[in-house]
């Protein structure tokens, strides 16, 4: 997990700078937003020329699953005050997955904090390294970095495409996005695809219960 987080952080740092963020903005994003998928989404909308509203909305929607994770781990950790706030900040795919995988309350707490703090330190260190490297590269297109962004999103969604329902929504998202890119402001096609998913989730018949989703970094 440590190696994966480090390399993922380097990719994010380099692509954020290519998208037009400064090195400082990239570092602050990893410190304060601290959710890989949402951070990639934000720079994706910025790179496409989207508005601040579209960038914040896309990033926030993609981070909504962290709220579900919080509801799962909060009763397991039973914290108060600043510790609860710190735990909330560290509530991401990895820390949740490790915490819910433990058998005893002590192991849950140890797993959550170890994974959360570990990923936080590595993610921020490697984001900075990637941002500095991206800053030094020059023309991003000559290095194929614009294509790397699409590949990064594909890698993030790949493990989530196993279910039939997810595949149908993925197909709808492709159609909606391609249809809207020529006519809607940048950033709007992505939000429209999310709206289609909300409708699909509301009307689709029930399926076997799933717990937390797969690792995203």
């Amino acid at each position, binding site marked *: 997990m440590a190696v994966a987080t480090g*390399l993922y952080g380097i*990719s994010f740092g380099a692509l954020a700078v290519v998208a037009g963020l400064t090195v400082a903005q990239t570092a602050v994003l990893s410190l304060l937003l601290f959710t890989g998928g949402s951070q990639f989404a934000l720079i994706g909308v910025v790179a496409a020329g989207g508005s*601040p509203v579209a960038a914040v909305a896309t990033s926030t929607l993609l981070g*909504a699953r962290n709220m579900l994770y919080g509801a799962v781990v909060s009763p397991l950790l039973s914290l108060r005050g600043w510790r609860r706030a710190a735990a909330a900040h560290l509530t991401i795919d990895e820390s949740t997955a490790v915490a819910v995988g433990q058998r005893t309350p002590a192991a849950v707490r140890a797993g959550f904090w170890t994974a959360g703090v570990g990923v936080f330190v590595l993610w921020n260190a490697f984001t900075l390294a990637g941002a500095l490297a991206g800053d030094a590269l020059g023309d991003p297109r000559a*290095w194929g970095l614009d294509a790397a962004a699409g590949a990064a999103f594909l*890698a993030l969604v790949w493990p989530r495409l196993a279910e039939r329902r997810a595949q149908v929504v993925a197909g709808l998202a492709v159609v909606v996005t391609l249809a809207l890119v*020529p006519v809607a402001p940048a950033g709007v096609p*992505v939000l429209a695809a999310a709206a289609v998913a909300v409708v699909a989730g509301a009307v689709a018949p029930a399926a076997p219960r799933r717990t937390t989703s797969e690792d995203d970094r």
Partner: protein
Amino acid sequence: MTTTMLWITVLLASLASFGLKLAGHLIPEHWLATQRVQRTSTLVTVALLVSLVVVQTFADGALVVVDARVPALAVAAVALALRAPFIVVVVLAAAAAAGLRALGWG
């Protein structure tokens, strides 16, 4: 976006992210533990990521174009099907696009 607008974007998104995480810790678990909420959350994540793949690969401003990014995405898909790690997928895609452009296409 200007640097100031980017800072506002970065800080607002960070605030929203923390707000969601904290809300998850503060509200009763059973409010969010319904199957419909879980399912919708999973599907929204899929739709957003797939849409971002499409935008990053086919959009050039308001134009839909086919250039070196498309074969690069195909290379990434093959790498993922072969269970390559994240960084290998990203680097192979970048190398494919860079290689095609060095040859004068896309």
